[in-house]
């Protein structure tokens, strides 16, 4: 049992982070904290991808005569794209938060709902 968990520790870490992030997005009322939660959530998926690219005994995927086994670089490249997407999302989210703060004077969700007349 323990061995089964340890063998797949990368998946456990990914799931653990994923749930932390997801919980933060759902449970926190502060928009910045929500965005931080969203970031953790996304990062957990990045880790999932990156860890799957590791080939045991493999080296960095730079072609060289001395090595035969390389790690799989494709997940890394994919995640590079996903990270850029994540950065764009964060920047846009923070931009929205700044403007929400300027027009409402608050970034707490319950206060925003009150200001909009929704209870």
């Amino acid at each position, binding site marked *: 049992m323990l061995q089964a968990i340890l063998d797949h520790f990368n998946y456990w870490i990914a799931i653990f982070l994923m749930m932390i992030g997801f919980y933060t*997005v759902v449970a926190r009322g502060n928009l910045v904290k929500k965005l931080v939660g969203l970031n953790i959530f*996304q990062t957990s998926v990045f880790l999932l991808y990156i860890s799957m690219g590791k080939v045991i005994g493999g080296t960095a995927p730079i072609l060289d005569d001395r090595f035969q086994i390389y790690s799989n670089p494709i997940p890394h490249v994919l995640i590079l794209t*996903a990270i850029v*997407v994540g950065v*764009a*999302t964060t920047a846009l989210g923070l931009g929205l938060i700044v403007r929400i703060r300027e027009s*409402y004077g608050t970034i707490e969700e319950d206060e925003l709902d009150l200001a909009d007349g929704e209870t």
Partner: protein
Amino acid sequence: MADLSVHLPALQVVVPLVAAPLCLLAGRAGLAWIIAFAASAAATATAAALAYITIHNGTISYHMGGWPPPWGIEYVVDTANAVILLLVSAIATVVLAFSPASVAKEIRPGSQHLFYCMFVLCLTGLLGIAVTGDAFNVFVFLEISSLSSYALIAMGGQRKALTAAFQYLIMGTIGATFFLIGVGLLYIMTGTLNMADMQARIAGIQDSRTVVAAFAFITVGLALKAALFPLHLWLPNAYAFAPSAVSAFIAATATKVSLYVLLRFTFTIFGAKFAFLNLPLNWVLLVPAVIAMFAGSLSAIFQRDVKRMLAYSSVAQIGYITLAISLASSAGLSAALIHIFNHGLMKAALFCAMGCIFYRIGTTRIDDMAGLGRQMPWTMTAIVIGGLSLLGVPLTAGFISKWYLVQAALQADLWWLVILIALSSMLALVYIWRLVEAMYFKAPPPGLEGAREAPLSMLLPTLFLAGANIYFGLDTRLPVAMAENAATLLLRGQM
């Protein structure tokens, strides 16, 4: 230079993609509009050519950068996505034709060129999702279209647009990340990202729990993006507070494209047998779809803002589409694709008409629209036609959708579904009637007596869309032929 027609799948995406930075460089609203309009018109021409080729010569495959699949990114066009490409690019073109006056009124002067930049970027994303044959590429384009649509929605005039955009950003990102997890799990299991290759490799490992988990993540993620009940909470505010042109474009296209991806993954990659026999996808989709039909329509009845009302109506309409998908038959899939096409036309017409009203009276509240039937007769004609189409009255596009949907339900021996469809259409009658009643049978509220008809530049595209609703209610050859062909391809699991 070789024959351009071979490169159509790539041009479909990269022409709008290049237009986006050009709009940014243009710096002025007028020039940016010309670039955006030219790009979307070119995209429409490309989509029409692709549709023609797929109908006559079958599926087209294009290898990005000359790298053959499964190593390179492959763009695949068959009739299923040719319909989507045609719908998205045509709606974008008409909405852009509609937009200059509307944008000049609703968007801050300094950022109007940015509006067009974001608009074509959103178009690029949506076209890219439809055209690509690579699972990860779908995610990238999904995020391109989503990020630009968050920005577009935030450009709405009221401050609630900001919170609506933020809410959509959170929900949309969660949906896209779920999709990403699913694709990652599939990559772990198959070692490929090419859809056709994935399909071949997945066939032998369908009992694996990882594949089932991947399927669940992808379905939930896409359902969030497609605003399938109960994951629709982001949609009403996003549609209601976005600028008029954005509402019209996104309402007509964004959720439809997500539904297309759901179709693609369910039928082409996983296969109908896996999704509907090994797993109970039919019930997973059918129950929320039926609830959506009623909850969406009921919520629509109680809305005071017409844009919000139409947004809830979209939730109900997405219910119809999902219902058709859940039948998993050839007739059901045809009905789904036909309704995707027709619903795009209806909602674009209705939201454009709302744009005309907003342009003149500065609000879309139903009480403020009282008596507009006499003051803005043409806009109101468009609304009535769109509304009738939404109800499914004969001679409109909506009737064709409902007809195929009912037939598909009957074919599956689900006669009670037919009753439910009829009942929920009655609910649609209630909210459309509220609108008609206010427009034609009430006196205008004080201060708004002098409203005039919207300018021609907005009116003509709106009427064109309304006319399309009538046209495709009479001449159903194009959507029906493409949808039936696509349904056969999807059920056979071909790309």
